[in-house]
């Protein structure tokens, strides 16, 4: 049937369109850094790259789910700091690791429930709600830590962070497993279907008899919980908890998602695109580190890269629209 082939053509075109500008940027960057600095592709640096990417991945992947629901979570950076402080403070006070992590998960659960309830059931704008919980998390972290770094807790976290399995850093494996898990959830469960539906047509989900608000809230809870777990990676990296160490990570997480081609509208997006976005940001920062560009300027470069990627994608989409219209 002619219709059938036309549909197939459409699908391939869509696939092509879904390959975001970030891929081009990523390839260009890797080539540039590798030529500029032979150490860039060394095993050490690649392991380092993986470690850096793993934490960001843990934040950016659940952020993808939230953005797919046409929402946003600005509180992840502050919450990450808070959970780190909670775990560290409990460990220093002599509690076991399980209790400490459990407490951090409880904190994540509460913040996630607040975000999710206000955004889904009360339809409040996500960016202001999560800005509020950002302030709350930041303040709580400061209050618990009195503004000082907390160190001197069990070395097992750092040992875990530094360990490798078959030459691959354990955190990288953990992040990869997490990615696989989220992929399964998003593409192989009904919960995943409903996430696309909330961003694309929440009314349709209501009509289908699904508790759409509950699902919507669960996405925020999921994000906050994975942030709480990610605090372990943060502690392993810095071996101390500082309340404001993760400030701004929400920006990189959101940037990674947007770089990966996920849109704030219609539930259009791609989980693996976020992985590419995370890689692009990590490679950029790593490369800039190797070239000893200072961190503040790196943030700027991330922002610029985001704009470039958006321009590339927009330009191409404009072409498509022009061709279609």
């Amino acid at each position, binding site marked *: 049937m002619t219709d059938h082939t036309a549909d197939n053509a459409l699908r391939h075109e869509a696939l092509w369109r879904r390959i975001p500008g970030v891929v081009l940027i990523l390839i260009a960057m890797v080539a540039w850094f590798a030529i500029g600095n032979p150490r860039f592709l060394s095993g050490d640096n690649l392991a380092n790259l993986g470690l850096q990417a793993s934490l960001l991945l843990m934040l950016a992947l659940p952020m993808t789910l939230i953005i797919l629901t046409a929402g*946003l979570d*600005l509180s992840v950076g502050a919450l990450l700091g808070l959970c780190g402080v909670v775990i560290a403070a409990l460990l220093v006070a002599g509690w076991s690791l399980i209790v400490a992590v459990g407490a951090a998960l409880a904190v994540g659960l509460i913040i996630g429930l*607040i975000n999710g309830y*206000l955004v889904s059931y*009360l*339809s*409040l*704008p996500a*960016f*202001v*709600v999560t*800005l*509020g*919980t*950002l*302030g*709350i998390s*930041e*303040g*709580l972290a*400061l*209050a618990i830590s*009195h*503004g000082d770094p907390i160190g001197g807790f069990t070395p097992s976290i750092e040992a875990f962070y530094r360990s490798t399995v078959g030459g691959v850093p354990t955190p990288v494996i953990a992040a990869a497993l997490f990615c696989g898990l989220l992929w399964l959830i998003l593409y192989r469960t009904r919960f995943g279907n409903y996430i696309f539906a909330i961003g694309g047509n929440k009314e349709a989900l209501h009509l289908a008899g699904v508790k759409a608000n509950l699902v919507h809230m669960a996405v925020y809870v999921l994000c906050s919980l994975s942030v709480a777990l990610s605090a372990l990676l943060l502690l392993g990296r810095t071996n101390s908890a500082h309340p404001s160490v993760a400030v*701004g990570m929400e*920006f990189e997480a*959101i*940037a990674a998602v*947007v770089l990966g081609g996920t849109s*704030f509208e219609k539930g259009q997006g791609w989980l693996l695109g976020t992985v590419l976005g995370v890689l692009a940001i990590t490679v950029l920062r790593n490369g800039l580190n190797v070239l000893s560009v*200072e*961190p*503040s*300027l*790196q*943030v*700027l470069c*991330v*922002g*610029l890269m*985001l*704009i470039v990627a*958006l*321009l590339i994608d*927009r330009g191409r989409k404009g072409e498509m629209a022009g061709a279609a219209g």
Partner: protein
Amino acid sequence: MTSVTHHSPTAAVSRALSPDSIGLLVRLGLIAAICIFLTFVSEGFATTDNLLNILRQASLLFLIASGLTLVIIGGGLDLSIGANLTLCACLAAATIKATGQPMAGAAVALGCGTLVGLTNGVLINRLKLPAFLATFGMLWVAQGLAYRFMAGQTIYGFPPGFRTWGIGFFLGVPVPIWIALAVGLCGLIFLARSTLGREVYFMGANETAAVLSGIPVGRRRTLLYALSGAMAGLSALVYIARLNAAEPGIGEPLLLPAIAAVLVGGTSLFGGRGTIVGTFLGALILTLIVKALNALNVDAAWHPVVTGVTLLLALLADAALNRGGRK
């Protein structure tokens, strides 16, 4: 007045009891309540010096929140004001240090702030980015530029002539209060007595209808973001003049209280509703809450928590009050 307007008593009553005036009364009542509380709890609260000091602090918050008020009334949002303030502060501080000319610093701060605001407007109008995303990105760009510019340094020690802007007095009243009064008056005139203000309310309430009524929505939006940026620049000047120092961490903590002040002041995030006076009262309420926390010996670390909770409560109230008029 020659116009024959007939004011029936009922019309006067209904006007006096309009939602706006009730909101005003509620806010004034809240302020009175906190003040009475503080009079009893904290010694030396009800002194002229202390009250002027509180007003001065509220004025600083009001300055940065006033530009944001305009943006939100017009249906937008500016998350970059805090970082913009930081950048302006650093650039202005360096300029004043280098030239010794406060006016040169002022020009740099206002210029930089306006430029950042204009860029926001362009990103939103041309790239069609959502306002929160564009200004959130701008937050980090401005922050990064500020860190880069300062390179880990703090600039401190300004000429006395400049410090007057932050700590001086004029006719027995702190200069920042005068500045806030002037800005408030300008804002009031802009919103209530200029055609631009009318257009801002209209496009905030219904952008489609605004376009079909011939309001150049894109240009007006750019103007609002530019004004918001300029206010960040002005606030930066007053701020560093008071602190006598500038470093790249000063502006970012102001974003949350500024948004909270705007919402507490009754400006709706759904656009088309809000006043400058409300924002001033909102700033005053937030300042008083901090004073009350201090009086109760609450650790300063809890301030963002309370501000965050206040923001969420104001958001809930806004949604409850404004949803009826919309759906």
